[in-house]
């Protein structure tokens, strides 16, 4: 019996300790609000003209997949939760595009988020079972970042071919004639280029290598485009692999004379120098809003419908689009749904949520920094596709 009272005492003491810690931290330690904003959570943000959602639906849907999509999806889910008064909960976890598609196929997810659209074999598998709906929900851009002490941000000009040559190992020094030719007024040092790339499989790498494949035949035949590739610079000892965008950004920051590629949001949050890239029409551009919008508009003609197979046009058809102002490294992120759901409430929730995402969700106040909204013509693909949702 003595031991039992001892255990009870332990439990009681722990509970008391925890409670006192909470009380202490509430009153004694000066607390900072997350984000240093004192607004309460019950009001809808007063500056936003986003319309209130009128629906009496209530429930939870679960999705997972692309990491790139995660922050934006969380922002949307939070807003939608607020607007529906807490009735509709959309959970999303970043487990990777490949895992997202695989789990979607295994039936454990209501929807998947993915950088590349559905693989053709999964697409065909579902075609026999009622079909799928896939559509772009957001636009993302990749920037080339660099760390050259003597060169400020926005001053370095690069072309796709030069970048490809750097990552192939054919250009090893910053003062190589090819780079000098593009930047006659810059003082480029004679230092070895450290080429930083992703170590983990990622949609960012896929889009980046797709771009390199498009602009460089040598890259296309030697390396190719995929979530992960075999980087020639690694063998030469000039490559560094960073885990995640965070890792690449850190590597570029820590290693002078390095170059890397990251999702745009990471370049700005870490204060890395961003390079100008020459687009198809010959202009040097940064991923400003207009540049991205121009790129997206140019693509509308080639995009298929939501219930069709996208696997052969992406990303190769989409990358490096025409247009005077277009930014070359622009790409979409996709959401994948089934056409048939057992649960009518789930189907209805998905319909409401993604309708909102494709309309209100694309308004500037609902888009995070580092992402760009879809032009209405592209959003229309998803809106049309949602009409195919049904129960069965």
């Amino acid at each position, binding site marked *: 019996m003595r031991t039992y009272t001892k255990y009870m005492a332990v439990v009681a003491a722990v509970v008391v300790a925890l409670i006192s810690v909470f009380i202490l931290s509430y009153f004694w330690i000066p607390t900072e609000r997350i984000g240093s904003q004192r607004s309460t959570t019950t009001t809808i943000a007063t500056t936003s003209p986003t319309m209130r959602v009128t629906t009496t639906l209530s429930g939870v849907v679960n999705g997972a997949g692309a*990491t790139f999509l995660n922050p934006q999806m969380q922002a949307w889910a939070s807003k939608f939760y607020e607007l529906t008064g807490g009735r509709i909960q959309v959970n999303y976890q970043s*487990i*990777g*595009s*490949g*895992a997202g*598609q*695989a789990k979607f196929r295994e039936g454990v997810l209501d929807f998947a988020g993915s950088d590349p659209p559905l*693989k053709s074999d999964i697409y065909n598998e579902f075609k026999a079972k009622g079909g799928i709906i896939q559509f772009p929900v957001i636009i993302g851009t990749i920037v080339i970042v660099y760390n050259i002490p003597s060169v400020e941000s926005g001053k370095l000009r690069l072309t796709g071919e030069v970048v490809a040559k750097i990552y192939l190992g054919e250009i090893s020094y910053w003062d190589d004639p090819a780079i000098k030719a593009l930047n006659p007024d810059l003082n480029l040092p004679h230092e070895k280029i*450290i080429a930083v790339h992703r*170590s*983990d*499989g*990622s949609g960012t790498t896929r889009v980046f290598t797709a771009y390199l494949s498009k602009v460089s035949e040598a890259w296309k035949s030697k*390396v*190719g*485009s*995929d*979530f*992960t*590739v*075999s*980087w020639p610079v*690694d*063998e030469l*000892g000039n*490559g*560094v*692999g*960073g*885990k995640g965008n*965070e*890792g690449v950004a*850190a*590597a570029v920051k*820590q*290693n002078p004379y390095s170059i890397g590629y990251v999702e745009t949001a990471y370049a700005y949050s870490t204060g890395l120098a961003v390079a100008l890239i020459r687009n198809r029409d010959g202009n040097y551009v940064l991923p400003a809003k207009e540049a991205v919008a121009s790129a997206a508009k140019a693509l509308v003609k080639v995009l298929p419908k939501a219930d069709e197979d996208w696997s052969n046009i992406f990303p190769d058809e989409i990358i490096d689009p025409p247009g005077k102002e277009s930014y070359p490294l622009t790409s979409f992120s996709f959401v994948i749904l089934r056409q048939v759901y057992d649960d009518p409430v789930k189907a209805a929730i998905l319909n409401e949520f993604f309708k909102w995402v494709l309309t209100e969700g694309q308004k500037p106040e609902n888009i995070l920094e580092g992402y760009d909204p879809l032009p209405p013509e592209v959003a229309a693909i998803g809106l049309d596709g949602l009409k195919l949702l049904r129960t069965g």
Partner: protein
Amino acid sequence: MNSEKIFPIFLIVFASISLLIVTSIVISLIINSYPIFLRDGFSFIFKSVWNPVKEDYGILPALLGTLISSAIAISIAMPLAISLAIFSAEIAPTSIRGFINSVSDLMASLPSVIYGLWGLYVLAPILNQYIMTPLHQYLGFIPLFSTKPIPTNLFTAGVLLAIMITPFSSSIIREAYNAIPHHLKEAAYSLGMTRWEVIRTLLGYIKSAILAGAFLALGRAMGETVAVAMVVGNTFTLPRSLFDMGYTISSLIANQFPNAEAYSYMMPALYSGALVLFTIGLIINLAGLYWIRRVVTRG
């Protein structure tokens, strides 16, 4: 009387459950890695390539990286762990012992990603500036230090691992040391031994705990995924020196598994990496058993 018979059976059931879990996992490893063995035989263990575009995989750099980083980690961690255990048990003032022990064990709970971030932003630059670069400058002719160091490499990974695994072996050694009967300590002192000599003798008494601690630490080092992935450099090349960048099997799995299902042979390749890890662990354990039988039972 019945409980006499039931109790051992009761224990056997639990032990069997543990064994069953491990065996099931190993079987699932074998089943899931089968496709790549079928296609490539054992050659992929000794190849150095990771080309998903061509579905060509070879895990040799990861294998070497695991061995190198774990070796660094264990050789740094064991002296530290033993010292920490003895310091807490013998040298530190009684009042702060509980605190030291609690904070040390606490670190076992810190999520791996925070270790990784700390390693990336704090440890890597410090090691680069104060240890790796000087070593390379002055002793660069020794093959071990011959590569010009970049902050994230195998050495940094090894040191970070050492920091992470110390709490595990330290706690088990400390508990065993504290459990040594006092009359043994008193006997040693009464013989006129100095404090250090007593400690040395008592350490010999708990050899098995030290070994258990070493295995726990080694296992942890070989299995750590996220933290290592963030500081190891991640270039798929064969390492030639301590300062080379590299991979470990665990960090390779951590890096690649999110998108692995998009390919036909990558998942099997990763599972086979885990299987190789299991085999290495098995070999080390068997070697340890053999060594114990020879050394420990003698004294």
